[in-house]
């Protein structure tokens, strides 16, 4: 019987792990570039959950929260860049399926 009141570190980690797994699966399974981007966002946020959790149960120096804020900023800018790339790729190739975009083949 799980006691709701005693939510501990483990619970947060489990949520984080779940989110991360979902992200990985999305990234690997989907072929739509936008979907892959969403998967990446999921993984980042999984990490955020973990960071906040560790801070809450750790030394309490607010380090984790600050890291998280940084991650938000980075995620935002990364999304902006990635979306710009995707739009440009789409514009020039008319495709959004990553399997079909293999111009970098060695």
């Amino acid at each position, binding site marked *: 019987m799980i006691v709701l009141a005693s939510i501990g570190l483990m619970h947060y980690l489990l949520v984080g792990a779940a989110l991360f797994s979902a992200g990985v699966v999305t*990234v690997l399974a989907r072929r739509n570039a936008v979907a*892959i981007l969403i998967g990446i966002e999921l993984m980042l946020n999984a990490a955020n959950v973990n960071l906040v959790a560790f801070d809450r149960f750790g030394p309490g120096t607010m380090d984790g929260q600050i890291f998280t804020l940084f991650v938000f900023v980075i995620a935002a800018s990364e999304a902006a860049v990635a979306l710009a790339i995707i739009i440009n790729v789409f514009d020039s190739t008319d495709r959004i399926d990553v399997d079909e975009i*293999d111009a*970098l083949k*060695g």
Partner: protein
Amino acid sequence: MSDATLLYLCIAIVAAPLVGFVLQYAFGRRLPRQGDWLTVLTIGVSLACSIVLFLHVLGQPEGYSTVLGPWTWLEPGDGAAWTVGITLDGLTAVMLVVVSLVAFLVHVFSMGYMQGDPKYWLFFAWLQMFSVSMLILVLANNLLHLFMGWELVGLCSYKLIGFWSEKRDPANAARKAFITTRIGDLGMVLAIMVIASVCGTFDFDAIFAKVASGEFSGPWLTAAGLGLFLAAVGKSAQMPLHVWLPDAMEGPTPVSALIHAATMVAAGVYLIGRMMPMMTPEALIVVAVIGAVTALMAGLIALCQNDIKKVLAYSTCSQLGYMFLGLGVGAWHAGLFHLTTHAFFKALMFLGSGSVIHGMHHEQDMRHMGGLWGKMRITSVTFLIGVLAIAGLPFVTSGFFSKDGILSGAWNAEPVLFWIGLVAAVLTAFYMMRLFVMTFMGAPKSEKAEHAHESPKSMTMPLVLLAVLAVCAGWGTWHSKLLSPPALDTVGSLAFEHVGTVVILASAAGIGGLLLGLFVFFKNAEHVPDWKKPFRALETAFANKFWFDELYRIAVLRPSYRLAGLFRVVDSAGVDGIVNAVGSSGVDSSKKSGWFDKYVVDGLVKLTGGICQFFGAGISLLQSGKVRLYLSLSVGAVALVLLLERLL
């Protein structure tokens, strides 16, 4: 007069024409009458100041000499101070008057002669500068200062001889004059080097003091003296550097008058006269011999010239030879006195020939003249006076007094030189009479001669004045006071004297030459005289000027050009070639090392590359370009790492 007044006068003498030159050069073209009045005015100021100075010096006791300045110009090190300053003594005073007077008259004469020339204004500008240069030279109290005037004289002669340098011959003549005198200038530079090294100063008085005290003596002193004489030989057109003078007749006739009477050629005689105390006996022998030889040979050449100006040119050579003969045998006074009198009668004759040429519409060949006596009365009469003066008509003309002084000096020193001088005197009278008869007597020998006309007043007035001077300059004792020689022990007496025998012989020579000329030519004045047949070979030699020009062309000019051409080839093929050969031998060795490079070094490099390529080809399969493959691989790899960590 105080020193300050003298100084201002001297400065005015140089500054007036200098200002004239600058103004005329800059604005002359736009001035009314193209500025001839300006230049005549400035040279007139010079003349007036010169006369004042002349009278001042004449009023002083004999042997008067004063130095104004000197002012330091440059201190080039070793404690030496190079100065500029002014010497004022009898010699300077005489030269100042001669130069400014002749220059003034030439200016006036040119107003008529050069009328209508497109570069009328420019001609006057350079005449001014010519006078300035010569006046600087005459006033100098040290050798370096003198040398500056000397070189400027060279520049101006270049500009004026080549005044019509859009034509080929004047340009060549100007160049020849400059370069020939430049060869002489080497001697001057040599003398300057020696004097600077030994004396540390160029001041005449200081140099002479060192010579007198024996501090400056020996071979270097002789060398310096000969160097100076070389310079004088160049400037005064003595053998063997006389070749430029006849060619210089390409210049406008007033310029010839100026060059021959007052400026350029006079500079050489003046230089030796001025530097007399440092001429060693050995050097003086050379001076006397060269002078005598030139007097004779130039006289011979003059016999066979048909161009009126060329006759006068060789006559100048010959007369200058006289002056050097005088200086060389110690007749210092007579030599310089002859310079003065010669300036007057030679200026007279050159301007007279200018007047003839003007009247004949630029015809210079005497064979086409004749019969001008009635048509150009003033010119003819004044010219005749000039002829008599140069021939030395006894007891009247100035030429007699000065020439006699030189011959007396030669008589006392060395009879051989005297006889050479005497022969030259006969020759002078003879060819001058020939010139006069061919030009003025008999019947006109060409269309132009028949229509000849007398020149305007601006041209005849100078002739009259000069004719008066050509006669009167020898009268009185002014010259023995002003040209009192420096006291010297290197040569015997420098005093002026007339030896009885010489007076008789010289008179006979002059009159005899004139009469002979009259006899030979007047009789044949109708046609070109043919008296020379028996002396055909000699005549050829004279007419060809003893082949000096040809000799120089073969012995000096051609080798120089050849040498220059050779050096040019040497420079591009030799010097540059050697350097380039070093370079190309580098290329050569690099070709050999190239083989090694290509097969060994390069081989190794290529091998490495090949290996890399081989592996690269395999690995590049992984580079599929498929994003999902990459992601899968990385996730897989992370998982693998975690798994391994857990297992191990």
